[in-house]
Structure formats: structure tokens, C-alpha cells
């Protein structure tokens, strides 16, 4: 009995310094290993039928594979097999359970870090202001045009559990109003049609398990809006077509596969703000 214990102690101690592997088990205990696999599958394994030495070898192998996975993210399919064997052996249950929990948590973390692609279809209401020069040979003024439009489009997004990056685009159509009543020339136009395109890059954080997002967008807005020159021919309008750049903050809040979103920016100029509110769904 004493000799058996010392032999086991030497084996166990030495195994701390050696990297146990499934190959070693297969090499030294091939017949038993195959039998164990079958018995685990059939749920017929009796732990008393196998030596403490073999059980310890399985445990060391499991520990080695777990450490490799936690360090290098390389998960061996045999790790799951080893876990089942050790659970069937009811050997070092607490330690096996702790290792299994670590593996599971790491698997979950890796899964959460993995980026996945998804698409969205969305409709947004947006509004922005722009300043347009109105000039005569001697006078130059700026007039404010307030626009609003509906923008229909979609996006491509890459997201994991923490971050989201994407690109979006939509076609917009709407109207604008302008009226200058203080400075010459007195000028008014209402319901000026416009159409255009808005594209944006976005980067955000995912801040809830439901997928609520908070981030920044870099939208480019190209619109065509034909304003008429004032009738007296003295004044001319400049720049009917323009590409506008509005860095914005955005939030997107999901309700299942549907979401609502808003964006506003850039907070730099009193008459140069874009905001939008919209809804859509992801697939």
C-alpha cells in the first residue's frame, strides 16, 4: 500500500513538471481510453474500475489544455471530452468545475469579441440649415435656408458585444424654406424642392445587452436645391449645390430587430446643425 502511494505521489508530482497530453494517455492507456470513451457515452462508467494514476493523468491533461486555451485562445475539441471523462470519474470535482467555468467564461468572452456582419434598412427624417450667399455688385449677405427631408436607405455594420462600425447611405427628398426680410434684398421662397444623398461612417459603443448604441457618425450630405434668383436681377444667389459635412453624435436603441435612432451635430455653429430621427430594422 505504501509503495503504491509513493509511486502515485512521484507520478503526480512529476506530472506538474511535465506537460500532460492526450497523446500520452493514448500511448500509455489506449485500451482503457477507448473503453472509457464508450462508457462515458453510454453513461456506464464506474470510477472504481480505473486507477488513480489514470484519473490524475486525465486531470493534468485537462488542466494543460485549459491553460493553453486561456493563453492562446486555441480550443481543442478533446478538452470537452476530457471534461466529460473527469465529471464521470467524479475526480477532483471542485477543481474541474473551476477550470470548466474559466473555459466557459473565456469562450463567452471570445464569442463576444467576435465581429459579425449585419445589414439594416432604415427611414430617417432629417433637418439641417445652410447659409447661402446672396450678392449684388456692392452688397453681400447670407440667407438661411431651413431644410427637411425624408431619407430612405440602409447600412452595413460590423459589431461585437462592445463596439460597432458601419457605413450607411440613403437617398433623400424634401423641401426647404427661406425668407430674408431685414436686409436687402427682401427675399422669400417656400417649399423649395431638394433631393440628394447622405452617406456616413459610424463608430460606436454597445452599452447594453439589448444592443443600445452610442457613438459618432461622419456624414456627408450632397443635396441639389434650385433656389431662384431674386426677381430684380440685381442680386444673385451663389451655391445651389453643395456637399455638407456634419460630424454628429448618434444613439440607436433596439426593440427586438427594430430600432429607433437619432443623431445631432456638429455643435459648432448656430446655423449649421443637422439632426435626424429614424427607425429601421436589422437583418
Amino acid at each position, binding site marked *: 500500500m505504501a509503495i503504491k502511494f509513493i509511486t502515485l505521489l512521484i507520478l503526480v508530482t512529476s506530472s506538474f513538471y511535465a506537460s500532460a497530453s492526450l497523446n500520452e494517455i493514448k500511448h500509455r492507456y489506449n485500451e482503457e481510453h477507448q473503453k472509457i470513451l464508450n462508457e462515458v457515452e453510454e453513461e456506464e462508467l464506474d470510477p472504481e474500475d480505473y486507477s488513480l494514476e489514470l484519473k490524475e493523468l486525465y486531470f493534468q491533461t485537462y488542466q494543460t489544455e485549459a491553460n493553453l486555451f486561456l493563453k492562446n485562445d486555441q480550443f481543442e475539441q478533446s478538452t470537452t471530452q476530457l471534461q466529460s471523462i473527469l465529471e464521470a470519474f467524479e475526480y477532483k470535482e471542485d477543481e474541474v468545475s473551476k477550470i470548466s467555468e474559466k473555459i466557459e467564461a473565456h469562450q463567452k468572452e471570445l464569442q463576444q469579441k467576435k465581429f459579425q456582419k449585419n445589414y439594416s434598412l432604415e427611414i430617417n427624417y432629417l*433637418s439641417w*440649415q445652410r447659409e447661402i450667399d446672396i450678392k449684388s455688385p456692392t452688397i453681400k449677405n447670407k*440667407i*438661411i*435656408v*431651413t431644410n*427637411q427631408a425624408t431619407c430612405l436607405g440602409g447600412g452595413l455594420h460590423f459589431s461585437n458585444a462592445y463596439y460597432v462600425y458601419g457605413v450607411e447611405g440613403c437617398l433623400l427628398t424634401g423641401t426647404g*424654406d*427661406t*425668407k*430674408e426680410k431685414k436686409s436687402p434684398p427682401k427675399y*422669400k421662397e*417656400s*417649399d423649395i424642392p431638394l433631393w440628394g444623398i447622405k452617406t456616413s461612417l459610424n463608430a460606436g*459603443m454597445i*452599452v*447594453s*445587452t*439589448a444592443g*443600445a*448604441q*452610442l457613438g459618432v457618425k461622419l456624414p456627408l450630405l450632397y443635396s441639389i436645391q434650385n433656389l431662384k434668383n431674386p426677381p430684380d436681377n440685381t442680386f444673385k444667389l451663389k451655391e445651389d449645390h453643395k456637399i455638407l459635412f456634419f460630424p454628429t*453624435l448618434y*444613439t440607436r*436603441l*433596439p*426593440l427586438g430587430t427594430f430600432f*429607433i435612432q*437619432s443623431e*445631432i451635430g456638429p*455643435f*459648432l*455653429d*448656430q*446655423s449649421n*446643425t443637422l*439632426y435626424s*430621427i429614424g427607425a429601421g430594422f436589422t437583418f
Partner: protein
Amino acid sequence: MKTFLVLIFALAPLTSWGYANFIGHGYPSCLNCHFNPFGGGQLNDYGRVVSATAISARTFYPDNVSEEKLAYLSGFLFRKPKQDHLRLQANYRGFSMYQNPGSEQESKRWITMQSDIRATLKFGENDKFIVSGEYGRVPMPEFPGEGLNEQQYYSRNYFVGHRPNENFGIYLGLMDKLYGIRVIEHIAYSRSNPRVSQNDPVHGISTHFLTKGWEGGISAFVGNLEQEPEYRMKGASGMLEKTVFDLHRIGASFLSSKNDFQRLTSAAIHGRFNIKEGSAILSEIGQTTKSFEDNNGNRTSRYALLQTSVRPWRGLYFLTNIEYQKQNIHQDDYSVRIGPGLQYFPIQRVELRADAYNTRNFSNDNTRKDSWLLLLQTHIWL
């Protein structure tokens, strides 16, 4: 200048109503955290603990300070109450207001809008009987309000309540009218149009009921008795909410009131949606009709509110308020006010807030630059 004064008038009394967006923390009912079952006013013990352990950041606490310790410290004067019957709270709230920052019309000022003490006496099993109220300096410059005498100190909330069981309660005193979502932003069109803002409390009686799937109440009121009689808005209001998908609330409310000069009726539907971990969506759409004795200025206005609240980290909330108002539904003009805001609770009892409001008017007859407001707010309570 006139517009500026009107804005000050409107903005000064930002107040301590409940935070309806905390449905995102899984608290659909105000009763969880407030003595007043419809929200606002003094926090109860549980509300203080939630504020300390779920709402406020713990960045500035050492790691060895446990959540239990934070909960213990959340009581009045930083300790757990030693008796069951009296609860106290003191509040200070002030803010800097900048109008059109960076423009030629830039202006700024500091306003102290709240400095009060609150007390609640409670007795019986599960606090069956409560007496609650607050008293403090009047927030200037909006006082005296309509039909009120000039005063230095005032109370805008006091009531007695009896809750015979957990499902039902009845309350009598000076309270806010039951209507819509009590968002903290009292300048919201959804508060100003139906006149349910912080300076519109009324004396009356309210009932409150709460079941697993439903919550609501009805109130009858005789106006604010401190007002001259002809200004008192007398009437009734009610609100009903249903829990949907175990997480969200949808609801409806109505209000009808009148004094010697005007009659006001209003109705709204609303939704509060829990997007988890503190993130939430609040929405309300309503319509208010005001008719005057002389029929001058009669109008029906329509409003909408969408507030999104996103919590990137514990203690920090990014809010976006999007509001729509059509002052007269028979005219084309309307306004959209949109405002991003940051709300930060760095430690328990301290709230810092920065809000930017962009107001844009849509009109065929008038085009002007947006107006911007920046509000920086500090709120401390003991």
C-alpha cells in the same frame, strides 16, 4: 431680449421630478423609489439605496468600499436611519445658462432654482400612513407666478397618504397633476402645454393603484389654494399604464381643468421602454385645447416627446430629447427642439448635468437661425 426673458422664465424651475428613464434599470413604477407613487419629491429608503448602488458611479470610491457600505451611507447625513418613522432630505440645485454660445447674442447667467428641505413621517406596517412635504426658498426669477403673492419661502408639495394595501393608496394635499410622463425636463412641451410643469401643483385628492400588469390613478383638484381664487385651475385628471412584455409600459392620460379665464383639456398617449442596463426610450404624444372666456386666443396645440437615454457606464447617461410642438394645429408653423445631454452621478447625492437645446422653427413666413441653449446643472442632496 423679450424672448430671452421668456426663456429664462421657462427654464428657471428645472426641478426634482423623478427620472422616468430609470425604467431602463427595471423600475417601471415610481413607487419603488419615491414616497409619492407618481414620482417626484422625496426619495424613500429604497430609492436612496438604488441611487447609491445602481445609479451613481463608483469611480471615486476605493475598491474596498462594498456596495453594502454604499447602501448604508445613502441615508440622511450618511448613515442608516435609527428609527422607522421620520425621513429627511435636503436639496440644492443650480445651473448656468448660456444662450446661443459662440454667437453675437451670447448671454449667460447663474440661477439657484432649488434649495429646500423635505420630510416624511410614516407609520404602520408597510408605511400605511404617510405625511410628506417640502419647504424651501422660492426659485427666482419666476415667482410670483400667476395669481400668487410675492414670497420668500414656499412649499410646492405636501400631502397625507393612506395605503391600506400594496395595491391601492389615496393621497390628499398639494401635488402635481397626474398626466403623461413626468420627465425631469419640465420645460418639455409635454409639460408646458397641458400645464403640468413644476409650478402647476394643485390641491386635491389622488388615488393610486398598482397591480402586476397595470398602474394608474385618478385625481380631482381645486387648484392651488395659495393662488387668488379666480386663477385656480379646478378639474380632474387621470393616467393609466399597462406593462407589456414584462419590461415596458404603455399608457394614456387625460386632463380637464378650468379657472375664471380659461378652460384646458388635454389627452396623451405614452410609452416607456426598457432597453436594459439603464438605457431607455420615453415617448409621449398629446394634444391640448385651450379656450378663453373672451374667445381670444383659443387654440389646440399638439406636441410630441421622444427621449432616449443611453448609459455607457455606471453613473453616466447620455440623453437625447427630441420634441415637437405645433402651437396651433390649424396653422402650418411648428417647432422642433432637439437636445443632447449628459447626466453624471459621480458619487451618491451629486448629479451634474449638461444639456444643449437646439430649437428650430419651421414656417413658410419666417426663416431664422436656430436658437441654442446650454445648461450646466449641479444638484446635491443630503
